[in-house]
């Protein structure tokens, strides 16, 4: 079974770039790596998804090395409203969804 590992928590300051890395072994060869954001008392919300190399959208970038054993979510110029829990999601070679335990990101003024 695949397993994911994320830092439990991180903190940073407004205006900084934040990088959160998720390690994942034994993931399905051809499937996506996805990141979600969750605020208290809400369901997770999709941030970004990628298969390999680099993907960028209006809120984040996702870096995936060639071996796909990790991925890094990059949040540029964070603000207080980016304080949340961030999850990586992969599916393993048996097509089972595997969620990371989440990284609690705290942004300070």
């Amino acid at each position, binding site marked *: 079974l695949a397993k994911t590992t994320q830092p439990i928590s991180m903190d940073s300051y407004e205006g900084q770039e934040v990088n959160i890395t998720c390690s994942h072994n034994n993931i399905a060869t051809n499937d*996506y790596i996805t990141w979600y954001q969750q605020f208290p008392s809400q369901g*997770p919300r999709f941030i970004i998804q990628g298969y390999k190399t680099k993907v960028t959208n209006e809120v984040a970038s996702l870096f995936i090395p060639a071996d796909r054993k990790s991925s890094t979510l990059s949040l540029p110029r964070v603000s207080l409203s980016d304080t949340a829990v961030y999850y990586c999601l992969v*599916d393993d070679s048996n097509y*089972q*969804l595997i969620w990371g*335990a989440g990284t609690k990101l705290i942004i300070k003024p």
Partner: protein
Amino acid sequence: NAGVTQTPKFRILKIGQSMTLQCAQDMNHNYMYWYRQDPGMGLKLIYYSVGAGITDKGEVPNGYNVSRSTTEDFPLRLELAAPSQTSVYFCASSYNTPQGYNEQFFGPGTRLTVL
């Protein structure tokens, strides 16, 4: 579009009682999911469905049952509630292709307490 809706928002059950958590989506998604999230923890997949009439177990299915008679609805049934089922339950849906799992849309959650 309402997206994914869940009812009720809150519920308190006594040990041994049963209940059904309702979930509906209006996005014509083929996949639907039920998760539980214990305080301070990540999400655990309970059951999922790839289409009407097809369901499969996730990581933590014991104590739960599901059905999917229509594309829109995916109720979760708790039989003989136990304190260990105290959690927040999220329903989600997505439109997946053979290439993989796409973005999941989540409902607002149901907070369940079993006393």
